[in-house]
């Protein structure tokens, strides 16, 4: 058997809880060609360079190479049900000028009009109320699951409100998202019986999810309602209206990305704080540190570990390697955020880290659309958790992780508590 590359090892489920030693090995070759022809970029400087390089595409349709490149290697093609189903691009899978136009059209419906982008700040009272309610519900309990009882309900409730997705549909799309994510694998286990058996289900889940978004948009087109999706479906702005398939594809993205990554960030934040009692204590005594703390947590456990849809449209020379035209490029944000060339003592958690220019939300034109909302949610959630939960103790370390490699996060974080403060 051929020895696995550090990247392949990092992707193994057994290493989900701690991929960092493999990232460290990976960074010794900042731009590392994998057996399947993919180029994995793992160092901070190189990733930032490629994020600003106009010869790199984010549009998988422009990458004819994966199949060919992968055929050259021994690995089977990775299972990617999401890519197969979504024929229309969304803002993370298209390039300028379409990208710029679509994002420009979406932004005002998310943050508010250009002259007064207040929608995100206006959500703060709601977010505080939801977080307060979740913590109140923990009263009388001695053990909680920081994922199911806390990290999940907040973002999903908020995103439903922001987008105008009926909360009663949550169990359905929760199931679709989980099923699809579990079927997606970029590592050596992609060819395993288990993952292959999940693929049909994953594909079907994405189809049903897409159909759900379609129907929702149709409904809003006929009868406008609250939220961003209805606004987009009825947009009469100067740049016209998004085509229906592009809108549907973006709707899917917003519903999914609008909560999934935040769930993982909150869960990881709780986990990380419980692993670092000094940091937890510091935050308890200096609550104003929550703002930089969330930035450090974004760096420390990045919710999007890597991104997989980029490719080289020309030969690109970088870090002593030439990424050939047509090659897929994976940008490993999770590794870059622990790059010692950029961050002093990168494996230390430091809420007062100067110049913390992390890549937790990426950079360049594809910088996370939902970042302002995610930040606000996590600041409130983690800040209140620290303030109100008495004597939290981690039950299991490491906790069980979800399967997905990109959207890496714990499935459960069991915490024993002594009570809930007012």
């Amino acid at each position: 058997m051929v020895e696995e590359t550090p990247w392949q090892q990092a992707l193994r489920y057994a290493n989900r809880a701690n991929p960092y030693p493999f990232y460290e090995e990976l960074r010794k070759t900042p731009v590392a060609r994998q057996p399947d022809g993919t180029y994995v970029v793992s160092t901070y400087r190189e990733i930032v360079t490629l994020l600003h390089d106009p010869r790199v595409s984010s549009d998988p349709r422009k990458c004819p190479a994966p199949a060919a490149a992968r055929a050259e290697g021994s690995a089977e093609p990775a299972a990617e049900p999401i890519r197969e189903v979504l024929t229309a691009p969304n803002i993370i899978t298209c390039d300028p000028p379409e990208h710029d136009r679509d994002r420009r059209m979406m932004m005002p419906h998310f943050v508010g009009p250009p002259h007064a982008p207040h929608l995100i700040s206006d959500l703060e009272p709601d977010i505080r109320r939801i977080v307060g309610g979740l913590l109140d519900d923990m009263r009388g309990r001695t053990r909680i699951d920081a994922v199911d009882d806390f990290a999940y309900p907040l973002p999903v409730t908020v995103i439903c409100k922001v987008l105008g997705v009926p909360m009663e549909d949550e169990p359905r799309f929760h199931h679709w998202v989980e099923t699809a994510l579990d079927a997606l694998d970029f590592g050596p286990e992609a060819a395993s019986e288990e993952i292959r058996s999940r693929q049909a289900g994953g594909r079907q889940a994405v189809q049903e999810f897409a159909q759900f978004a379609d129907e929702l948009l149709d409904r809003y087109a006929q009868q406008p309602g609250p939220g961003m999706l209805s606004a987009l479906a009825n947009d009469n702005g100067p740049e016209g209206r998004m085509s229906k398939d592009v809108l549907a594809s973006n709707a899917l993205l917003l519903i999914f990305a609008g909560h999934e990554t935040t769930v993982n960030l909150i869960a990881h934040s709780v986990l990380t704080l419980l692993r670092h009692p000094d940091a937890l204590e510091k935050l308890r005594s200096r609550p104003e540190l929550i703002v930089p703390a969330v930035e450090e947590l974004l760096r420390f456990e990045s919710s999007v570990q890597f991104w997989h849809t980029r490719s080289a449209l020309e030969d690109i020379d970088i870090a002593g390697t030439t990424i050939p035209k047509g090659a897929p490029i994976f940008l490993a944000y999770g590794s870059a955020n622990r790059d010692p060339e950029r961050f002093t003592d990168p494996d230390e958690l430091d809420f007062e880290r100067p110049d913390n220019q992390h890549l937790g939300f990426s950079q360049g034109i594809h910088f996370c659309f939902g970042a302002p909302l995610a930040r606000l949610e996590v600041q409130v959630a983690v800040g209140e958790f620290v303030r109100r939960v008495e004597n939290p103790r981690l039950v299991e370390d490491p906790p069980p992780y979800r399967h997905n490699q990109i959207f890496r996060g714990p499935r459960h974080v069991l915490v024993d508590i002594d009570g809930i403060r007012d």
Partner: protein
Amino acid sequence: MSLPATVAELVREFRAGARIVIVGASLAGLRAAETLREEGFTGSLTIIGDEPYEPYDRPPLSKQVLKGWVPADHTKLPRTREVNADWRLGVAAVGLDRITKRVRLADGEQVPYDRLLIATGTRARQWPNPAEAALEGVHTIRSRDDAAELQKELAESPSRVVVIGAGFIGSEVASVCRELDIPVTVVERGPAPLVGALGGVIGEIAAQMQRDHGVDLRCGLGVSSLEGDSGGHVRRAHLSDGTVVDADVVVASLGSIRNVEWLEGSGLAAGVWGVGCDAGGRAFDINGVVTDSIFVAGDVARAPHVLYEYQFLAMEHWDNAVLGAEVAAHNMVNLEPNYRPHLLLPGFWSGQFGVNIKSVGVPPFGDEIVFTQGSVADRSFAAAYGHRGRIVAAVTFDHGKWLEYYGKLIERSGPFPPPPSGWDQPADTKPVPAEFPDPRVPTAIPDVVLTGHAPSERTAEFRPRRH
């Protein structure tokens, strides 16, 4: 004691007890002072500034201040740390004696120094006719007070503003006028706005942008005179083609003049071009020999730049003030081999007519330009400047996220034209002449003469020009 130990001791003593004087209390002077303290300098520090205000930031003056959103006195610069300095504000330096190492102040006081930093910057070039310049309603804009006065008049809805000179400041003033719905005429001698900084090809785009926003743009013309009413208020501008424009406010944005007059007779390489210095900020004397105790930073500094064939460049940019000051300050309290070079890739920005114009490198060093990304029609694009087959600068209109890609190409002396973008290519990707006016950088030609024959006598002399 060994020699290195002696030198180290010298540096320690200097940092503990020496006297440093900074002339210029704006961005560069402030950041230099902070860096000195950051580097462990605990001796006496004096900061001299001709304006009565503590350091403030100038870029907002021609934008949010003029617009009336931000009061002019709301531009005070944040501090990175305590500087524990003796601030001499509101009193100008008027002379420098390098023999006795003293700075002479307008109030007659003499301030001794062991190390001196010159950060006196520039001032606005005034309308050349003093009587007309004195008319009420005639403005320049460089200082906080300038901006406050002009803002007040703009707030009174003048019938029309005439802007003389369509460089960045003039164009920004015109932009604010249009935002405030004030009629504005821009008179520019060159063929288009921004031609000196960005060339004629980009200038043409800027011209169209101004016209689309309702600016009455008159290029290829000068203003021959300004006419006032009996109350001494400006009412009309007479243009060089004989036309007359009625206006209540005139803004002369004719570029800047470097504040070097106080250095006359000091024997430094100071003149209209600024103060010559090496890339470490050490001032040259008149013969081009580097001095040990005098440093220069900010707009007034002119230093050789490795990326531009070692030509001496004065970079009147915000980041040059910050980084140049940090380098000069570091070098003021260090000795070889611990000197640091100021190797800035210059950059600037200008917000006007709702578009963010940014540049990296030295555009006037290029003789060709090529559009690389985006759409000129949408005024959302990137373009690169080339000189002898390599990229020397880039400009973006609302494409700032891509600028660092070009910056990296410039730093590596990458090819021109640069490799094409993989998407969103402009309609025309053929390089064309960039159309900079001749002569290009550097613009000021000093009157320097060499005198003396014996090597010990040979020296340079010049007579500073008056403006």
